[in-house]
């Protein structure tokens, strides 16, 4: 078999053939490359976590060593000097509300889009797809002016409303795509049982579509929790600022307090990481189906 094909191979292909794919060396090479890349993702974070338990002096002198005298002082500082607890709370209030609103309003709209017949359906569908192309930059100036006029700047609502609006098209498209695949028989059966449209939604379609709600919920949460741009514009005041704004302030105001910086990074990353390890599949699906999001 090989003598036949090898004549058609160039020298380079034959070389690769011999050393990379057919042999043990090839396998080892693959593992070395993969391990190196995974080091680039693990090592920096491990470095941050380790250092967050050292005092700033030890971070400078022994940055790669295991903490000799582990301390939680950096975390205490994060709570006392920059009030990271408050930012945490703000982040969860804002992003939590966004997720609930998007799932509720988007879920209802998705149900109508997927299972009911009406004239404007095609137009609305096209509109939803087009709105995935709108980046936050393109709406922020008018949104900011509207928020000033409504006197909402630096309240939770100032970020909750535009985040909800920005994520609804994505949510409706993903959830209605899922609902469209549910067999018509289920719908007919629930009509037989005397369900109206609303009960049909809560008793049949919502439970069956839960995986798509989870996917959308996770992605919307991440997107909202991680969005620095709109947060800086709309909710930068300490009272309402989410954790990403705090991180940005820490970097400009406490740029020499390494202990505080490492603790702040660790605290921002840890909840999301734990969450990710628990629901990895849903995360991957959410992020990749959110690919087209503006």
């Amino acid at each position, binding site marked *: *078999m090989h003598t*036949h*094909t090898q004549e058609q*191979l160039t020298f380079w*292909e034959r070389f*690769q*053939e011999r050393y*990379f794919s057919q042999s043990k060396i090839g396998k080892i090479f*693959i*593992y070395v490359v*993969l391990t190196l*890349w*995974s080091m*680039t*993702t*693990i090592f*920096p974070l491990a470095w*941050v976590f380790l250092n967050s338990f050292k005092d700033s002096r030890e971070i*400078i002198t022994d*940055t*790669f060593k295991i903490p000799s005298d582990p301390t939680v002082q950096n975390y205490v500082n994060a709570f006392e000097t920059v009030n990271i607890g408050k930012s945490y709370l703000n982040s969860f209030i804002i992003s939590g509300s966004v997720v609930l609103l998007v799932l509720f*309003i988007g879920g*209802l*709209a998705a149900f*109508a889009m997927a299972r*009911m017949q009406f004239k404007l359906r095609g137009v609305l569908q096209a509109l939803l797809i087009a709105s995935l*192309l*709108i*980046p936050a*930059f*393109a*709406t*922020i*100036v*008018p949104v*900011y002016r509207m928020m*000033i006029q409504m006197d909402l700047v630096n309240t939770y609502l100032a970020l909750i*409303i*535009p985040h909800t*609006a920005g994520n*609804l*098209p994505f949510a409706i498209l993903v959830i209605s795509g899922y609902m469209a695949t549910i067999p018509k028989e289920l719908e007919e059966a629930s009509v037989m049982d005397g369900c109206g*449209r609303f009960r049909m939604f809560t008793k049949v379609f919502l439970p069956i579509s839960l995986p798509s709600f989870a996917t959308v919920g996770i992605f919307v949460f991440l997107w909202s929790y*991680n969005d620095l*741009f709109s947060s800086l*514009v709309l909710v930068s005041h300490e009272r309402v600022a989410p954790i*990403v704004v705090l*991180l940005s302030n*820490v*970097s400009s105001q406490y740029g020499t307090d*390494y202990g505080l910086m490492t603790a702040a*990074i660790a605290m*921002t990353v840890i909840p*999301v*990481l734990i969450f*990710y390890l628990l629901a990895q599949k849903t995360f*991957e699906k959410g992020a*990749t189906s959110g*690919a087209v999001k*503006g």
Partner: protein
Amino acid sequence: MKGDKLYIFLFLTPAFVITGIFLYYPFVENILQSFYKTDGFFNSTFIGIDNYVRLWNDEIAREALFNSLELMLYVTIFQVGIALVLAIMVNAITKGAGFYRTTFFFPIVISGAAIGLLFTLIYNYRNGLLNEILVNLGLERVLWLTEQSSLYMVAIPTIWNYVGFYFVILLTAIQKIPNDFYEAAELEGVTGIQKMFKLTIPLIVSDLKTCIVLAITGTLKIFELVYIITRGGPGSSSEVLGTYMYQKAFEDTAMGYGATIAVLIVVLGLSLAFITNKLLQKEEVTY
């Protein structure tokens, strides 16, 4: 179904009222405001295309535009390239595939702000990660963020941040290829690296195209990493359209001009996505 009209109205209204007021209206309004000059918050004067003329002559805007395009080139090549190599490699192994999948993907879930702060610490002159490694190896410290290097220094975390994302898309695509294809290829005598070029890559061309379009349009949305790591500096050597738009609209309160830059970002994104789609148009393989 009978009586559906009412439900259609009830179910759709909340969603389209909210997106109508806070997404579609601002989008249109933004285009209108790009024709106004704004002083402070409420004084707007219609100035026609003056903002666009100003944008055309604005040296910093031009630098931000070229920086964005340059970033786009690096980011697209390396994000998609590295992701493709990693995906093919992970597909070739059985042991540990899950571990690599997890570790490659997780930078995606971390906020740009945290990654920015992390890389600030890595690049730090006094005791950043890189300089400490150099010192431990007995070498001199290096100033990592200079006018020459700053753009590369923000390109690296951007690439690092998103490789896992394209990796998952491509790996999923590769794993969808039916085994028969490989078996048939082996009967034909196609093996190893050849298999990759003659079979795997042609079969995932449409997914690669999606990745490239996403990488290109994604680069235009870069804000966090640049804002935190360099603030567009030193000078304006790493300024990108996103950070420049923020600076003009909200730090210099030139909102009309900021709106103009936002229009440029949208137009650029749409045309680049369109062009890439056209250029990469190829018959798609279905199986």
